[in-house]
Structure formats: structure tokens, C-alpha cells
């Protein structure tokens, strides 16, 4: 598909755009990333950095497999990348506080064990033995030893720095304003700082993928979903594993800060934090780990995650102009899926085919759905 002379331009300098540039670079292919503000300044830096393919999945299948494949890449990647991405093989405890929730947890465990995944049920005393900081009210927990965490900002930067070293150009402070086509093929990307000739354009604009799609009359059903997070002052080690409860998730970062997330709010492009959410997150964290009551929370922020109607990303070729590809809509899994997305997109561009089929991720799945509905 890709010819050595092809000019590849990526719209969006978030973790997805930077990962694609990095993996293209590893294949010896140069690309240009166009970023409106700064590298990873939206969802990528607002994320908590959980890599949780198992705890976050509700059913087996194509998407679960993609998440697992993505997760499996980080251990090696943490050695391969030049910057420390604070990858921590920590494991995750999904805390169960009541009987009804326990039934759900058991179902989850059942199908995951059937799929050959590692997951364990721990009773209350086993749970507390593993994480003594947890509330004694815990009924038990699901233990996922392979769900980990890292620093999403460092990872984004590491991809960007790595990509640059491999020949990519990253143009920050540059807004995409239009896309030009010639006889059904993309020909250039227009920005507020000039026009860039392009044979391949990748829409990796996250929550703004709809706006970039519209430049080629394409409807990309990506919508921002706000997530709020709070962060504590640095503390000595309180707990090791990621903690997930029905209300919140809690991670203690290597510097000692405890991160508590998150909310899921359809409020457009509003990135404000709200007292209600801060209160809920704080209450959820203290309920799970009572000792957090006495510490100060020093920051609260919100990020916008690119949501799609089926909560599965949109990747690969489109039915739009030739050379126009998509890699967006990663919603809550952008960090987890960054490496695998970069790898698969680079394969698609250079070899014409990704090593994991991307057909199920095509934009056209939504268009078909729309037609069915109309009938």
C-alpha cells in the first residue's frame, strides 16, 4: 500500500497519533504529526494510566483480545522506549462489597477462566492480607495479576520523542483547517500554518475526530465524555495493586500520589471539574481505603475521552477519499490500546494489512447500523 515516496500526515498529537508515528518510524517510515496545541495535552494526559484489559471487560471476543494483545506489549515497550514510562506490573484487585456484586464478579471470573486468563477470587482475609490498607468491610475481591499501570503522560512523550528520533516531524501549535483531495484521493492537509502535501492522512484527533472527518464530508460518530480525577499529596506506600470498586478506581503512583477516578459525563467539550464529582470520588476512595481520609487531595482535573456508540475504537481505512484512514474513538482504552493501535496502523500503511484484522473496527459499521435503523 505505502510507497516509499508516500507522505504520511497524522492529524492529532495525542497518544494514538504519537504511537502511530513511532511504530511507522520503527519500520523506517517517516510521518508528520499535526497537533493543535501540545503533545498529549487532552485525554492522553488526563488519563490515570490503568492498563486493565481484564477488569474492564464485560465479555470475551474481538475487542477483549485486542486489549489483551495491547497490554502484553508494555513490558517490552518499557525497556525499548528511552524515557521511563513508570510501567508497574502491579496487578489489580476488584473489590467486592456486597452479595449482588459478588454474583457479577463470579460470572466475570468464570468466562475469563474459560478464556484461559489469570484471575483469582480472594476472600476477605486473603484480600486484606494482600492489601492491608483496604477497608475491613470488604467481602472479597477478584485478583487480576496481569492488569497493571503506567504513566500515560510519560508514555505519550516517550512515543513522541521516539518517533522524532526515528525521523518523524511533530508540529505542535498547528491546527488542521481542511483536507484537499484530487480525484478521490487525499492530496494535502491544510493547517493554519500552511499546507502539507499528503498521500495518506490519519485522523487520530480523538474527541475532535468528528471535526476532522467533516473536512472530507465524513461523519465520525465520536463524542467527548468527561472524566474527572482527583490526586492526593505524595504518600509513603499505602497499597501496591490497582484497586477498583463499584464507585471508583484507585492507583498509587510511583511518586506516592494516589489517583482516584473517574466519572462518565456527556457534557460536550466542557472540561470543568465539579464539586459533586470531587466529593463522590473522595468518598469512594475513603470507603475503600479508610486511611485516605486523613490525607490532602491536592489536584482535580477532567479530561474528555473519545466515545463511540459501541465503545469500541474506529480504526483502519474508511469509505471516504482514498488515503484517508482513521484511528480514533478509543474512549476509556486509549492508553491501553496505544501501542497495539500504533503497531497495527503502521502495518496497515506499510504492508497493506494489519497482523490483527481491523475489519471489525471500521467506521462503516456505524453507517450500516444507521441504514438498518432507517428501514
Amino acid at each position, binding site marked *: 500500500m505505502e510507497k516509499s515516496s508516500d507522505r504520511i500526515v497524522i492529524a492529532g498529537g495525542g497518544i494514538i497519533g504519537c504511537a502511530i508515528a513511532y511504530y511507522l518510524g520503527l519500520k523506517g517510515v517517516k510521518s508528520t504529526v499535526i497537533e493543535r496545541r501540545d503533545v498529549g495535552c487532552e485525554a492522553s494526559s488526563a488519563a490515570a494510566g490503568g492498563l486493565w484489559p481484564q477488569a474492564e471487560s464485560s465479555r470475551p471476543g474481538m475487542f477483549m483480545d485486542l486489549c489483551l494483545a495491547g497490554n502484553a506489549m508494555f513490558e517490552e515497550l518499557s525497556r525499548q522506549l528511552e524515557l521511563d514510562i513508570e510501567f508497574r506490573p502491579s496487578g489489580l484487585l476488584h473489590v467486592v462489597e456486597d452479595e449482588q456484586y459478588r454474583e457479577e464478579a463470579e460470572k466475570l471470573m468464570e468466562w475469563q477462566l474459560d478464556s484461559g486468563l489469570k484471575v483469582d477470587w480472594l476472600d476477605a482475609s486473603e484480600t486484606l492480607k494482600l492489601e492491608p490498607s483496604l477497608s475491613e468491610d470488604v467481602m472479597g475481591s477478584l485478583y487480576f495479576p496481569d492488569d497493571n499501570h503506567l504513566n500515560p503522560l510519560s508514555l505519550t512523550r516517550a512515543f513522541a520523542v521516539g518517533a522524532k528520533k526515528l525521523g518523524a516531524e511533530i508540529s505542535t501549535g498547528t491546527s488542521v483547517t481542511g483536507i484537499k483531495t484530487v480525484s478521490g484521493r487525499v492530496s494535502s492537509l491544510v493547517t493554519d500554518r500552511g499546507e502539507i502535501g499528503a498521500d495518506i492522512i490519519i485522523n487520530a484527533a480523538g474527541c475532535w475526530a468528528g471535526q476532522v472527518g467533516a473536512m472530507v464530508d465524513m461523519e465520525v460518530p465520536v463524542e467527548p465524555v468527561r472524566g474527572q480525577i482527583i490526586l492526593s499529596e505524595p504518600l509513603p506506600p499505602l497499597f501496591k495493586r490497582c484497586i477498583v470498586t463499584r464507585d471508583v478506581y484507585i492507583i498509587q503512583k510511583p511518586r506516592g500520589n494516589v489517583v482516584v477516578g473517574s466519572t462518565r459525563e456527556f457534557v460536550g467539550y466542557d472540561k*470543568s*471539574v*465539579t*464539586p459533586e464529582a*470531587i*466529593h463522590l470520588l473522595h468518598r469512594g476512595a475513603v470507603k475503600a481505603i479508610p486511611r485516605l481520609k486523613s490525607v490532602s487531595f491536592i489536584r*482535580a482535573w477532567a479530561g474528555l475521552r473519545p466515545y463511540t456508540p459501541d465503545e469500541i475504537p474506529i480504526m483502519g481505512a474508511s469509505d471516504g477519499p482514498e488515503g484517508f484512514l482513521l484511528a480514533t474513538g478509543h474512549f476509556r482504552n486509549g492508553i491501553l490500546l496505544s501501542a497495539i493501535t500504533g503497531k497495527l496502523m503502521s502495518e496497515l500503511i506499510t504492508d497493506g494489512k494489519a497482523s490483527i484484522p481491523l475489519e471489525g473496527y471500521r467506521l462503516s459499521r456505524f453507517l450500516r447500523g444507521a441504514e438498518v435503523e432507517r428501514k
Partner: protein
Amino acid sequence: MKKVELAVIGAGPAGLCAAIEGAKHGLQVTLIDENIRAGGQLFKQIHKFFGSGVHRAGIRGVDIGSQLLDETEKAGVEVMLDTVVWGLFEDKVLALVHEGRSTQLSAERIILAAGATENALAFPGWTLPGVMGAGAAQTMMNMHRVMPGKKAIMVGSGNVGLIVGYQLIQAGIKLELLVEAAPEIGGYSVHASKLARNGVKIFTSTTIKEARGDERVESAVTVSVDENWNPVPGTEREHEVDMVCLAVGLSPLIELARLAGCGFKYLSELGGHVPLHDEKMETTQPGIYVAGDIAGIDEASTAMEEGRIAALAAAESLGRLGGEEADALKKSARKRMEEFWDGSFGRRVKASKESLSVKE
């Protein structure tokens, strides 16, 4: 959630005057400050203020502070001390924390009078204990009556550097030297000559290069700078001092205005990013006003007038004050400010302030 008509954040000169003025015109006012004591930086200002009689000139800041606290109490203002405002949310909801407990307060009008913070200056050794803001030294000496060192060097010759320099001497600390990177002294000559009379060396076109010491400042190295602010090699001199005071300007404390979504403008004459505001001190967010250093670094005298104007505007907008009466009162406060600005420094401040008008 508790509701008030007017919440004033910061109980320095601007906030105190705003609270008093608001209460005078019938508003239910809550004044919030994170310190255990109201008065802001007034109580460390032991020098006489400038201006004419109407600006309480010739009176020391510390005495103005006492007067204002007295008036605040008489006016029936609710004062919440040791209370940090950690959030400002939609619909003017303030998040407060007092003794480890977080509460919310909803206000119909808000006056932000959070003041300013001292700028730091980075040079090798600038983090050593003994390097501190001039204001920090002032707080220690004049409020707590503690000597932060015995022998000092002052960096910066604006009014703060000159005045605090003199106050070091008053507190019994030897002021070894005052350096100024610019070719001329920045502050009023009356303050500079006081220092000269006390045998203080003032070196212009000179800056600090390094603070040396193991666990605290033991000496400071100064260096001359050329017209492009570059250090001139070979002009280094080491001075045996145990404290380095930095008087290199102030920056408005604008966090809350940012949270409120106010529009900003960068004006170096006023200390950096300053919230846009109109003549009534209202920001681009309706019902949110600014007063004092947050609205651009200036003197306590103008901060007090700004506080009054903001409170008058708030009272007027809530129907507590007829337009004519409000206009007359605002006008006279504005006039007092103009008179105060009627000097070369003031004119610069005034010009900068005018460029902040939201109406532009």
C-alpha cells in the same frame, strides 16, 4: 448549602474595604481568608503610606489594618479565617476547607481579593535556607519580631527592596549591600537616600550570581551586568552574608479568577497575567469582581479604593443602591485613585490598568 449575597475572598486591604463597603450598603457579606488573622500584608507595613490625607497617607499600614478590622467588626461582616478557598465552581459556588472539613458556599456576588505572591529569582543556591522573599523577611521581623539573619544582601531596588532594606536595619540586621540589575534605582529616591544615610552600599547594574553555603547561606556572589543584562566576567565579588532577600516583584494570585473562567491579559507592568475588568472592577464573568493586587500589582492605597468600587458595584447590581448614588460614590473612589496615581509610577500603572478594560 449556605448562601450569602456577597463573598469576599482575601482579607487584605482590598478585601477588608470591599467587605465594609458592601455591608454598609446592606449586603450580607462573608469575608474569607486562609490566614489565622485578617489584614493581609498590612500588619507588616510599618512604614508610613504615601499619598494625601484622603488615602490615609502618613499612617502606617499596621495602623490602617487595625482600623479596618475594627470597622469590619462594626459593619457586621461575617469573617471566616483559617479557611482556604480551594475551588470556585459554576453558579458562583465556593468550596472551602476549614480545620480539615470541606464545605460549600453559594454567593450571589464574589469579589476576588486574593492579593499577590512574591516572585522568586533562580540562581545557583537560590533554594538554600536563608534565601527568602523580602516580604518573608518583613513578616518575620515586623509581625513575629524574629530576625531571619544577621547580615543581609537585598536583591532589587524597587520600593519593596528599598523599604524592606530599611526595615532590616530597623530590626537590627546589617544590610551589607543592595544590588539592582538595572542601571538605575527603581523605587522612590526618598527611600534610597534613607539607605544611603545608613551607610548601605547600593550597586546598580549588578545582580546576584550565586548563594553559597552548605546547609544555609554563608555568602553571596554578585556580578556586574552589561547593558544587555549579561554578566561581565571578572566582576564577581563574594560577600559574607547569612541572608539573601529577593525583592524582584510580585505576581497576582489569579488561580481563582482562572477557575472562574475570567478573561486575562498579560501586562508586565502589573505583574503578569491580570484578569480583564471594567471600571466597576467586574471581570468578564458577570458578578465576579476583582480588587487589589489580583487586579494588577499596585499600592495598598489603590487596593482599598478598588475594594470599595467593587463592593459598590455589587450592591448596585443587587438593587441595594440607586444608580446615581452608586455612580457618585464610585466616582469619588476613582478620583482618589487618580490622585494617587498622579506621579510617574502611578501614571504607568494607570495606563496599564486602562488597557485592561473589558469594554475594549
